[in-house]
């Protein structure tokens, strides 16, 4: 088990390196010039060149790539003489490293990964992410939990009373839920619940986790705003979980060991919950892990429609402005989260099903 986790983490680092490389070359080889974007209409050759030098964009792509990796890696090499590179002469950049060893002009440094600064706002990318990401996380987790709970609760009766009106309704619902695009669902939900039915629901068409009070200027937590985006984002996973729970439970209930359980004289409730559900949930869990990734992608649209200031909005904004450090930082951060979620789910999976050998 321990070996397995270590191995998965090592793989994770490998994947991360791959993502870094792809993202870096994608944005540095594609046409587009951040320096020009930064200056806008009034760009002249000399100021573009100055900004390029400032951002390090005048160097060859390979050198830029190595510098980028050096900034990201917790273990990095630096030239003591180069002001821009060495942490000690540039404490604002790297913070205080945990360890440094010097060999002549070269220093080996152990530090926190450095995600650079936004070209546009000059704020640290790490700060931007740590402000936006928790909101996305909250949105995604809420909707996945909602989908899981509701989905399993609805999937069980659908399987037990197969071909009943309830089962048929759920079937229609889940095929609808699976096929509706999230941006459309978002607009539909906002219109229906926050415009047509606004008097009854008391919900707003858009708003983020924190609102500013119009009179006092006070910032306060507004959890009500979470409801619509979480519901919208949860529709598709909910539909999937319902149909998956149904089919998986149907499959499990036809297994031999279910017959064995009945042969012991157990009642239906005990057989379904203790013998059936335990086995039926594994594929559902696997699907949910997969969905967590798509949820992050779906969040970009939903956040935009509801103006939920999460990482999706950050990515879209920075894409428009060609703000490379923010884009790359956000993508890498999401990758880290997904890798960790996957490892976590694998462990849960092994706990639920002892046949899964982690070795």
């Amino acid at each position, binding site marked *: 088990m321990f*070996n397995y986790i*270590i*191995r998965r983490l*090592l793989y994770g680092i490998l994947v991360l390196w791959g993502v870094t490389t792809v993202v870096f070359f994608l944005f540095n080889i594609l046409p587009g010039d951040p320096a020009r974007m930064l200056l806008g209409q009034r760009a002249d050759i000399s100021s573009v060149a100055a900004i390029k030098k400032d951002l390090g964009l005048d160097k060859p792509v390979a050198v830029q790539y190595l510098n980028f990796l050096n900034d990201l890696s917790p273990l990095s090499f630096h030239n003591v003489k180069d002001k821009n590179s060495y942490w000690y002469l540039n404490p604002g950049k790297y913070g205080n490293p945990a360890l440094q060893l010097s060999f002549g002009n070269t220093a080996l440094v152990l530090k926190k990964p450095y995600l650079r600064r936004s070209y546009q706002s000059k704020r640290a990318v790490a700060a931007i992410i740590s402000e936006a990401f928790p909101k996305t996380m909250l949105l995604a987790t809420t909707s996945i939990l909602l989908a899981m709970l509701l989905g399993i609760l609805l999937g069980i009766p659908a399987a037990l009373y197969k071909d009943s009106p309830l089962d048929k309704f759920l079937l229609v619902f889940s095929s609808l839920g699976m096929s509706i695009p999230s941006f459309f669902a978002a607009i539909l939900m906002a219109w229906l619940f926050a415009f047509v039915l606004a008097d009854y629901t008391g919900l707003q068409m858009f708003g983020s986790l924190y609102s500013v009070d119009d009179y006092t200027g006070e910032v306060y937590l507004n959890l009500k705003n979470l409801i619509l985006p979480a519901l919208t984002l949860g529709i598709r996973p909910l539909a999937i979980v319902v149909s998956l729970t149904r089919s998986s439970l149907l499959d499990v209930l036809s*297994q*031999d*060991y279910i*017959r*064995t*359980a*009945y*042969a*012991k*004289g*157990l*009642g239906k409730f005990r057989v379904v919950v203790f*013998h059936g559900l*335990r*086995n039926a949930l594994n594929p559902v869990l696997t699907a949910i892990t997969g969905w967590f990734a798509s949820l992050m992608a779906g969040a970009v649209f939903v956040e935009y429609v509801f103006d939920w200031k999460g990482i999706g909005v950050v990515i879209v904004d920075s894409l428009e402005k060609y703000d490379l450090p923010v884009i790359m930082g956000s993508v890498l951060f999401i990758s880290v989260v997904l890798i960790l979620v996957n490892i976590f789910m694998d462990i849960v999976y092994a706990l*639920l*099903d*002892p*046949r899964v050998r982690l*070795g």
Partner: protein
Amino acid sequence: MISVENLSIAFGSGPDKLLAVDDISFHLLKGQSLGLVGESGSGKSVTALAIMRLLPPQAILETGKILFNGKDLLRSDSKLVAGLRGNRIAMIFQEPMTALNPVKRCGAQVAETIARHRKSGSKAIRQQVIELFRKVKLPRPEAIFKTYPHQISGGQKQRVMIAMAIANKPDLLIADEPTTALDVTVQKEILDLLNDLKAEYGMSLLFISHDLGVVARVADEVAVMYKGKIVEQGKVKQIFSHPEHPYTKGLMACRPPLGVRLKRLPTIDEFLEGNGKYTQKEQLVNTSERKQHQQEIFLREPILSVDNLLTKYPLKKNLLGKPTQYLHAVDHVSFQVFPGETLGLVGESGCGKTTLGRSILRLIEPDCGTIFFDQKDLLALGQKSMKKERQHLNIVFQDPYSSLNPRMSVGQALMEPLQVFGLHRNNRKAKVLELLEKVGLKAEHFYRYPHEFSGGQRQRIVIARALTLQPKFIICDEAVSALDVSVQARVLNLLNELKEEFGFTYIFISHDLAVVRFMSDRIMVMKDGKIIESGDADEIYLHPQNEYTRQLLAANIAYSVDGRF
């Protein structure tokens, strides 16, 4: 104790109606055991499930009563029946692999049965379960209590099932093919255990099996079922010494006999048509003729020669996923096969015989050694030339249910090899129809799908598929193990007829020594990846040298019908 009266159970209705159980009656006294014998689909399992009231919802009860201690189980309140299940009436199922819940510990699964019907504390129940495990002779009962089903062997799982069934000392124990999925040596132990427990608890036992030899070991009385009806019923000895019904006669005759060597096996159909005979003089193989034929064969250049073959599977991996420990499934095996002979390969499950068969075809890549087929080293061939060689080498798999693609019609499945090799471009269909006829199927089966066929017919399709390319060499990997004895005889005869006609060379893999001996010229016995004994089939069968071969043989003889009566 229990009496079944005029029971009829049907599946479906209208013109599709199928009577699975057709007006059967029997009764079972306290402490008595009844063996219910018949092939798959004869209605024996349906009868057992009806007693447990566990019939699938599609089953329709037509007529009849099942009286248990005077109460009609079929018309009792379902709560009351649930109270009897696992308590007064218990059942052991056929497949120990799938009958236990894979995500629950063995101990907890047995404890649940006790907790359902008895009021006692969890500690007391735990003690009881461990005591039960000791009773069914499980090694290290405390440790098994905590293991999951996948961590123990098939025989051990069946012992856990038995412990579960006898947990509340039932009055009636139903055992539905409890040993069919197990190796012969394990089978013997389980049957002895059932006999002991029956005597100790004074239980009645309803024992269901397709194998007369197995039933003979445990039952006092036998009822033979055929197409939903009980065709013959009586004391074991009487039935085995004087079978009346042609079906019973056929069932007894169609197993390869112990003493003599037959050219072909009598089949049940022949008996049902009224012209079956036990051992026909003209069917006996002439020993000197056989010897002469073999000498001729062994003078030829070997068609296949395997040298020092090793195939291993990783058992443990280190941090970087590199294997550190291996299981040697095929452990430095060398042998030769001569053109025209049948080489038998015997061994129990897990001995590496299937891996060996697949390694020869490179369906699993061996790790070292050489395989010379027709003077060509198969392991040295590239992808393309190996593919070409596959024309001449083919395999018949064990399970005809999973080795046919359910979405391909029989015709498509049989034409596929011809398409792959670009043969008979213009008359593929004709070729396939010809083959279907050869294996005893009809032209109209060409457009049918595998699920429309019975197990025996499917195995014929698989055999036909192996024949499409007219290979020189066929490996039969437990080709008849999944089939009923009656069907088994027909398929074995078919394989022999085909060999006669086309002059194949076979490697015949099986766990059943009697079947292998019937088929083979020479036999190799395999254990733990190694070949521990090899030689002339009759020689090994009659005078085994190795201790393990003797054990296998003893277990085989114990279940033969003609050896006992």
